């Protein structure tokens, strides 16, 4: 199903400036893979050995995927996947 993936400002140089990317995916992992297909430079910036780097947060419709099934979290129709830096706050 179509999913909107929101790219943070810090990663937009790797997407040619695009802040939102539409992909077809059923899980968060699939959605990220589909984004990496389009913009290969993103992969190494936010993943390491197939896992998310430790300072990357990913949300599905505002909910941290670590409270769900991580990269296996399923995405419902029209949901938004948001990638954000984890180093703010406190």
């Amino acid at each position, binding site marked *: 199903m179509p999913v909107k993936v929101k790219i943070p400002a810090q990663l937009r140089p790797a997407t040619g400036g695009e802040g939102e990317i539409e992909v077809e995916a059923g899980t968060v992992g699939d959605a990220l893979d589909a984004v990496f297909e389009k913009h290969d430079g993103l992969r190494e910036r936010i993943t390491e050995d197939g896992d998310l*780097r430790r300072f990357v947060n990913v949300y599905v419709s505002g909910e941290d995927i670590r409270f769900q099934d991580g990269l296996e979290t399923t995405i419902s129709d029209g949901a938004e996947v948001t990638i954000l830096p984890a180093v703010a706050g406190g």
Partner: protein
Amino acid sequence: MTVTALRCKECGTEYPLEAIYVCDQCFGPLEVSYDYSGIDAESVKRRIQAGSSGIWRYADFLPFTSRPASAIEPGLTPLVRAERLAEQLGVGEVWIKNDAANPTHSFKDRVVAVALAKALELGFDTVACASTGNLANAVAAHAAAAGIDSYVFVPSNLEEQKLLATDVYGTTLVGVQGNYDDVNRLCTELAAERGWAFVNVNLRPYYAEGSKTLAYETVEQLGWRLPDRVICPIASGSLFTKIGRGFDEWRSLGLVDGELPSFHGAQAAGCGPVANAFADGHDVCRPVRPDTIAKSLAIGNPADGPYALDLARTTGGSIDSVTDDEIRAGIRLLAETTGIFTETAGGVTTATLAKLADRGELGSDDRIVVYITGEGLKTLDAVREGFAMHEIEPTLDSFAERVPERSPVTA
């Protein structure tokens, strides 16, 4: 001035001193780096001692290219020897660093003074923050004093005292329906949309440096000596790790001799992602949904968690968590033995001190510094339980009849 660049703590990539906070190569946090090679310890010491009576006396160690100033200057809060508390717990030398004595009654004045001075230096006209309450007070007050606009984002269910004590400064107070982590996520998104200085988002590398001044003051107030152990609350982990950095900088410059103290972190059991990771031997924190009366520490997704774990482990320290009942008891213990009334975060810290003493982890010759970061009047609900007042008629008989004799104070 010694400040040189922003540097990624993970991969070392360097960036100019701008309003950025994330490494665009690996997403790691940026930290301010300095070049202290031209620094002479004795002349710095003289400069500090001749400096202002607040944090700007440590300007050599703060991220500015010219001498910083602010309308409200925090710092040089009392470091008080707590003999009755130490005696009651059966431990050595206990010192309370009472940071409730800052202008808006928490350590957040330190980080905000630094962030706001930096925001002005970078040319911003609006500051903002994501806050659990104390930061909200500080941002609103410092912005008012500097005469610039501010937006303050908090969870809408914060303690009433913290909300009222923010709004009074004329800020735009925004109560977000959600917990602090929701507020923080929103502000991370907003920071990319708006040209504002979010003190703990895009200005976070500078902001966090303000916490080092707690380490500097501790050393100075102990007569240029280091403590053996420190006990410090952990929310994001920034305060905890920056106190470590402050001690380390002064050790490497020869301003103070000795080992880095053991770092003991304090969290609430209802929001203890760093304590959980410490107990489980993990080097990253699994986020939690906060459920604790210690709202100022209720960060379920702590940004500096991995670094806090590292500091506790490499210094032979620990990270503990305490229950809400222990927090309430901690507030009373500190109040009854030192005359210092702290908020729930200080209850967490004092309860952790008691827990470590109980476990026999604190030596009888240890010099221990306990960081009390906020004011009890901001979290009055925490002491409602157990409140007692003897209401009498204005007569001697009524007094004699209704008010029991006190037993003598021991310890």
